[in-house]
């Protein structure tokens, strides 16, 4: 028995060490003023400027100005980045408004949209094979990434012609395999986004029957940050805002430097300048702080209701959600859409206003 006692003692010591290690690695970051910040981003037309800013010293310049360190980390898997942010490993993440509401906010992480980078203005497309009207989709199997903005585009498209998701069968398909999937004879209807959509539409049998130009402002691509981190570290928000609008000014100047920047962004996203320009044409970029500020003052409240309804219908606001407004959303002017007692997503234009006034 002594042997058992001896070995079990060792085992328990090892177990205790392991336990301590797990605890340290899993406990969420407690908010407090800090110096080092991590922000995740993934390849998408409206987010490529972040990668460019990182590579060309713009991130470092603004971080140094406020005496902090900002690390931009590129995720090859968009959703994994949002999950990591929700779990507390990142201070900010590039996300659509819909995913920000469905993942961190529905998961109880109070999040703030600090900058809307752009909205999809044709980037998300419903494509049919050999048919040119959306109504022909009835009864078909539709390949798309379920519960994504593609699914949202489909739901809104069907709604626009008086149909619903009951009229089609949704097949969850990985975005990485969309182009290969289109080449198979089983696939006759698809919803996807650029650059895949552009590639697929190059096929003669592919018809664009509905796209996000008909849903202006509903699919926003934003920088989302943890609200508590933001409160404790206004310098972090100032630096991020500074980085973004400096890069935007550079990119939209129309001179040689702008072309060089856009070429670099195109190359980094696996295409070239022409390909990147084509994607930009289907994207409403918010080049100036004023673009973002006026958007929040006009369109935002209306579009928020559509997104809430979609998420609620698909059970994405959590099992306890009793209405589309279960999670309150605070608009930039303080108006609350939904339940005031459960505000977990906020739009903030405070820092964009500082940028507009040149006070960063």
């Amino acid at each position, binding site marked *: 028995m002594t042997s058992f006692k001896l070995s079990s003692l060792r085992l328990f010591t090892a177990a205790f060490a*392991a336990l301590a290690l797990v605890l340290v690695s899993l*406990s969420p970051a407690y908010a407090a003023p800090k110096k080092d910040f991590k922000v995740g981003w993934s390849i998408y037309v409206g987010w490529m400027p972040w990668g460019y800013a990182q590579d060309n010293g713009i991130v470092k310049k603004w971080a140094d100005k406020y005496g902090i360190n900002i690390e931009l980390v590129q995720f090859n898997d968009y*959703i994994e980045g949002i999950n990591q942010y929700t779990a507390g490993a990142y201070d900010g993440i590039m996300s659509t408004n819909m995913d920000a509401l469905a*993942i961190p906010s529905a*998961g109880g992480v109070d999040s703030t949209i600090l900058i809307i980078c752009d909205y999809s203005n044709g980037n998300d497309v419903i494509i049919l094979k050999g048919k040119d009207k959306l109504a022909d989709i009835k009864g078909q199997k539709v390949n798309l990434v379920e519960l*994504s903005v593609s699914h949202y585009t489909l739901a809104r498209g069907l709604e626009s012609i008086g149909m619903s998701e009951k009229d089609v069968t949704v*097949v969850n398909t990985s975005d990485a395999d969309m182009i*290969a999937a289109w080449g198979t004879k089983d696939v006759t209807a698809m919803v996807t986004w650029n650059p895949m959509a552009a590639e697929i539409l190059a096929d003669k049998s592919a018809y664009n029957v509905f796209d996000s130009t008909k849903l202006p402002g509903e699919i926003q691509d934003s920088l989302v940050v943890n609200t508590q981190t933001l409160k404790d570290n206004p310098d972090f928000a100032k630096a991020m805002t500074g980085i973004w609008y400096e890069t935007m000014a550079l990119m939209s100047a129309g001179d040689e430097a702008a072309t060089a920047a856009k070429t670099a962004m195109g190359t980094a996203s696996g295409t070239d300048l022409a390909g990147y320009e084509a994607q930009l044409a289907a994207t409403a970029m918010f080049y100036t702080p004023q673009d973002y500020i006026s958007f929040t003052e006009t369109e935002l409240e209306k579009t928020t209701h559509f997104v809430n309804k979609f998420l609620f219908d698909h059970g994405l606001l959590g099992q306890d959600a009793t209405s589309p407004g279960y999670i309150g959303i605070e608009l930039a002017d303080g108006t609350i859409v939904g339940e005031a007692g459960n505000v977990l997503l906020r739009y903030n234009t405070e820092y964009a206003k500082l940028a507009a006034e040149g006070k960063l």
Partner: protein
Amino acid sequence: MRRFINRRPDAVTQLALMLLPFVIVVICYMVASEARLSVNPNDKLLPGWSTIAAAVERMAFLPDPRTGNYLLWSDTVSSLTRLGIGVAIATLIGGVFGILQGLIPYFRATFNAFTGVLSMIPPLAVLPILFIIFGLGELAKVVLVVVGIVPFIIRDLALRTAEIPHEEIIKAQTLGASTWQIILRVVVPQMLPRLIDGVRLSLGAAWLFLIAAEAIASDSGLGYRIFLMRRYLAMDVILPYVAWITILAFSLDLALRLFQRIAFRWMYRGNGQ
């Protein structure tokens, strides 16, 4: 003092030691989950037991409001059907080619290098080609399982076949057996239990390929559900699904082992077992 290597735990200690790692993992989970929930009661990464229990009830015992199906069971049926068909086909192909490759020199000369090379190609890397050939339906998922595990089964069985003592083959020939008779009467009976071993060892890989196939394009299945739920970090559903897959995989392995024991009793005789 007796050396450590010669000390054996008694029955009770053995049971306790077996359970210990499991208990430690569960305690680690509970403590970490508690720590996260105390900061954010809605935390999705490490949900508490009551949240997990509610998710299990919702998935397994209540019909889905949109489709009316009991999701856990319909997912299980879809996945097990695909896995079953895939593994059955792979066993058949593996059995035939493995024995021929291990026994017949002409066959070995033709196919040995080919299956060797084939087994080194990661099937997930050539997915687009599989899609174009087999489409995106049920067939493609079964094919991915087959392609994923067949090279291993063939190579394993070919090696086992080559290990049959040559004296046995000679003896059968002196008794007048033809090639066909040798295969049927000498080789196949010895190889069937080895084939089951090979299948058992490749079941883990089969699950991996099944779940990968379901993640890529699907509308039901255990892998489909896990990847869909992952989109909004619903670990309260994913964790029970993972546990369920583990139970299914363990049971399949156990069933094959029992079948082997009962059907091939001779294997366990004569070597002191």
